[in-house]
């Protein structure tokens, strides 16, 4: 008799990837809406160009490899949108397009396609753009301004000039930053939906929340200039990463404890990078670094049969 060993759940519903991706799209809707409210037409164009880059390269790659088209599973669409949400609004559109192509080709397809990639594709795209065009990726604009008034992000203000942005602005999103990271409210709404519908596992976000809170809390007690817990949670890409990146089923551990640990260490890394590195923000790098540890965490947290 052939025995199949696999992780739970063993009973599978007839849901599949397209259904899952559509649900994620619903979860992303408030974030996209907020980005359009704050950055107007720029946001629309940037999202479209990232989307096009991702979708076109996915289709071209599948045709070149003579495989059936995978556009129907919406994964390229999600990758494109997630990428746009972590890019600065002023970015030239062709850079967004290039980012979409890199995300799909370098982030996903070279590893063998959906489910095989080690690193979060959208973040791979952003990391590439960050290394290739560092000036563009670190110039931000004020929300609501069509003529692109440059403004530093709350984290940059905190790191380089010790200025604090009011929490109310951080919560609503009336600050400079990447398209989808400014409005904490919208992210909590969308992310909350995903967790309620059990699309996203709550353990990784909880871990990240605790990791960031513990470390930033300690630093705050030592020196209030380190920034309060709420400041760190609401600024930069922390919440976006917490709800939409560390919950990615492909690049994070499979076990429950593993997911929690993954989030926890992400949270620690975010605060460490924000505090001690040359850059003000560290969410992207901490998630990518932890993606690399996923196989190790899987191995360490493998569920053991009772009694062993």
């Amino acid at each position, binding site marked *: 008799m052939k025995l199949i060993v696999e992780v739970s759940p063993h009973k599978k519903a007839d849901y599949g990837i397209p259904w899952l991706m559509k649900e994620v799209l619903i979860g992303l809707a408030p974030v996209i809406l907020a980005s359009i409210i704050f950055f107007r037409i720029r946001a629309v164009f940037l999202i479209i160009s990232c989307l096009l880059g991702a979708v076109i390269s996915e289709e071209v790659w599948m045709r070149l490899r003579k495989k059936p088209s995978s556009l129907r599973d919406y994964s390229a669409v999600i990758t494109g949108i997630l990428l746009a949400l972590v890019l600065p609004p002023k970015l*030239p559109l062709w*850079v967004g397009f290039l980012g979409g192509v890199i995300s799909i080709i*370098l982030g996903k397809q070279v590893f063998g396609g959906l489910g095989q990639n080690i690193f979060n594709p959208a973040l791979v795209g952003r990391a*590439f753009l960050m*290394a*290739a*065009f560092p000036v*563009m990726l670190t110039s931000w604009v004020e929300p609501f301004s069509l003529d692109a008034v440059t403004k530093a992000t709350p984290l940059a203000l905190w790191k380089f000039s010790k200025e604090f942005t009011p929490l109310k602005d951080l919560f609503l999103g009336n600050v400079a930053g990447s398209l989808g990271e400014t409005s904490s409210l919208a992210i909590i709404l969308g992310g909350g939906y995903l967790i309620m519908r059990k699309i996203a596992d709550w353990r990784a976000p909880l871990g990240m929340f605790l990791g960031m809170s513990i470390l930033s809390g300690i630093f705050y007690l030592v020196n209030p200039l380190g920034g309060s817990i709420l400041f760190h949670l609401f600024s930069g890409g922390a919440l976006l990463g917490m709800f939409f990146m560390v919950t990615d089923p492909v690049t994070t551990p499979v076990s429950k404890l593993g997911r929690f640990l993954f989030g926890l260490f992400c949270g620690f890394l975010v605060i460490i990078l924000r505090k001690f590195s040359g850059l003000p923000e560290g969410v992207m790098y901490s998630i990518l670094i932890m993606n690399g540890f996923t196989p190790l965490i899987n191995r360490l947290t493998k569920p053991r049969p009772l009694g062993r």
Partner: protein
Amino acid sequence: MKNVFKKGLWENHPIFKQLLGMCPTLAVTTSAINGLSMGLAIIFVLNFSSGIVSLIRKFIPPQVRIAVYTIIIATFVTLADLFLKAFFPSISKALGPYVPLIVVNCIILGRAEAFSSKNPPKLALLDSLGVSLGFLWGLVLLGSLRELLGAGTIFGIKVLGDFFEKWVVMVLPAGAFLVLGFLVGVINYIERKRR
């Protein structure tokens, strides 16, 4: 005879097929001119050391052969280093510690151990010439691509117009890995097509 020479140029290409000598390959190919100078330095070192190893191959006691090869290679590497420092100080500065590091380049020790210590000088020279020329074109190609994308120029000559936005990553270490991986992929693809 001819086959020995041609092998290093494509079939057994040191960079793209054997993936040897990665340290200079990845580190110095930030521009076409750097790739070219490193390639020339390797042509000099590899051919001289191969020739000499082959000439004295019958006198080298097997227990100390690696030590003897290393001394011979190090001699020519130091010569190349002195020459660059004296006559091309700017290139010497750009290549930095990677010229002295040719001593530990696997290609050179590899050719000495695998080929020139077992073959007469004529064959050994043909082999080393092929391998070092193969290395040269690999480095120049890698350097040109990285310079083109990273600075919009090739050999310092502007190729892409002002509209071009430089991809800084290409002249950083990450760019070296990306371009090398891409080229190995392309060459494997060509190889498969030819069969």
